[in-house]
């Protein structure tokens, strides 16, 4: 997207937004969204810095967003689950399908071995430990 061949990003130097021509024709809605995101970011950074530089802080700085994220991932999965036909079908296929598949694989393999043993064709030399 570089229209200006003189200002290209290098391996250890990314292109700053002021040299990127795409920066200069952004719509006003996108600008507003950028400003809102910047406001959220700076509010969070201010809260963090207030806690970070507080001389009477004795513990960790807790990130409430991280706590919400881990709670949602670990403890809050089932309350947001609703069984749908697609859901249940997927669960049955992935949960029970492989079990049945591997059952048939192993059953045929072992039955084939058993048949070979009964016919005496399998090489069953004596092993001291087995």
């Amino acid at each position, binding site marked *: 997207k570089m229209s200006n061949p003189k200002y290209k990003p290098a391996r250890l130097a990314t292109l700053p937004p002021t040299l990127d021509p795409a920066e200069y024709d952004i719509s006003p809605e996108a600008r507003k969204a950028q400003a809102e995101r910047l406001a959220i970011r700076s509010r969070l950074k201010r809260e963090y810095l207030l806690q970070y530089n507080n001389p009477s802080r004795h513990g960790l700085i807790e990130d409430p967003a*991280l706590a919400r994220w881990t709670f949602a991932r670990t403890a809050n999965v089932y309350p947001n689950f609703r069984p749908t036909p697609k859901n249940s079908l997927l669960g049955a296929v992935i949960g029970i399908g492989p079990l049945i598949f591997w059952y048939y694989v192993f059953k045929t393999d072992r039955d084939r071995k058993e048949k070979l043993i009964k016919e005496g064709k399998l090489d069953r030399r004596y092993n001291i430990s087995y």
Partner: protein
Amino acid sequence: MLKIIIPTVMLIPLTWLSKSNMLWINSTMYSLMISMTCLPLMNQFCDNSLNLSMLFFSDSLSTPLLMLTTWLLPLMIIASQHHMAKEPPTRKKLYITMMILLQIFLIMTFSATELIMFYILFEATLVPTLIMITRWGGQTERLNAGIYFLFYTLAGSLPLLVALIYTQTTLGSLNLLLAQYWIDSSTHIWGNSLLWLAYMMAFMVKMPLYGLHLWLPKAHVEAPIAGSMVLAAILLKLGGYGMLRITMMLSPTINFMAYPFMMLSLWGMVMTSSICLRQTDLKSLIAYSSVSHMALVIMAILIQSPWSFMGATALMIAHGLTSSLLFCLANSNYERTHSRTMILARGLQMILPLMAAWWLLASLTNLALPPSINLIGELFVTVSMFSWSNFSIILLGINIIITALYTLYMLIMTQRGKYTYHIHNIKPSFTRENTLMSLHLVPLLLLMISPKIILGTTY
């Protein structure tokens, strides 16, 4: 055997009558001495068992597990010192009493001769563990965890009671040593299959088997550190020990009844290892890795070949020590950051280098690095599984790779990388913690020299 049980029982008056500042020292020291008295049990005949009395015996299968149990009690007490520091002395003494009670039940379980006594103590171990999880756990989910733990294990083991009483009335006695000589290889009637199922379900839930493993992540994660240690190290092995004893009595039915459990273990092993790669919670990762390792043990026991029994017993001991060590390491993280999220405590290698050494050794043994005993167990199981059916090597190979993947993932996430900025008051490692880790590692590394003592009855 009484020389182990009576001192352990007397540990309870010791805790209640100690002064508060001598409490931890006394209990740790005397439980260490008790674990030393367990060592002479190793001196026994190799093709028979040490029959000590009508009720208790020890053979080369139960002795390593007994050693593990008695070794673990001082470690549990050492590990609990920090999070119990602020409790009133009565509650501290109650906590230690729960641990000692659990220890007594476990010692008697592993050395029981009569299967009914084994069953009663098997159930009795649930009660102190439940109290430890629900009363002293960390999060509010511990109530849910306790309920899952209790009811899964209870529901699984009620058929075992029925089966034991039935065998008692038909066979005449449930003495473990005699029962191996009295089995009758009956024909394949479906009553036999039902009996086999009734016997095995208790241990399958305890191990746990993949489909019935829901209680394990909850219980392990919500338990306090001593609870996690004893759950991962010993209580899972109760299931393995029971299965190893009972399969000697149940032989012919197993050939076709074993298939569903083999499939669940094979596929479950791969599934639980893969879930480990997606965990954010450190203790949950270690809990799922326990399920994966125990699935190997289940498969080994179901195949019933001498090599696989050796692998199963070696794997049980090795996994007990490794898993307990990993939980202690996770707990040392938890005590510093008060959160189990892995990404919160990164780059610890810079901050706590000695602890990083223990993390490294724990991860190396967890991924079954040669020549550790974990490898011996896994290798024996893999080789005997290959002789059971050639295709199993696919799933076993995938599992070994994924085990290495998630163990290294855990190591890299907690140790390497840049540390987080705001964690500026991570206390340096206490000597107590370093002692704890090294006491876990020393048996693990020393057993590399002579693994034959943990290889069980078929060595």
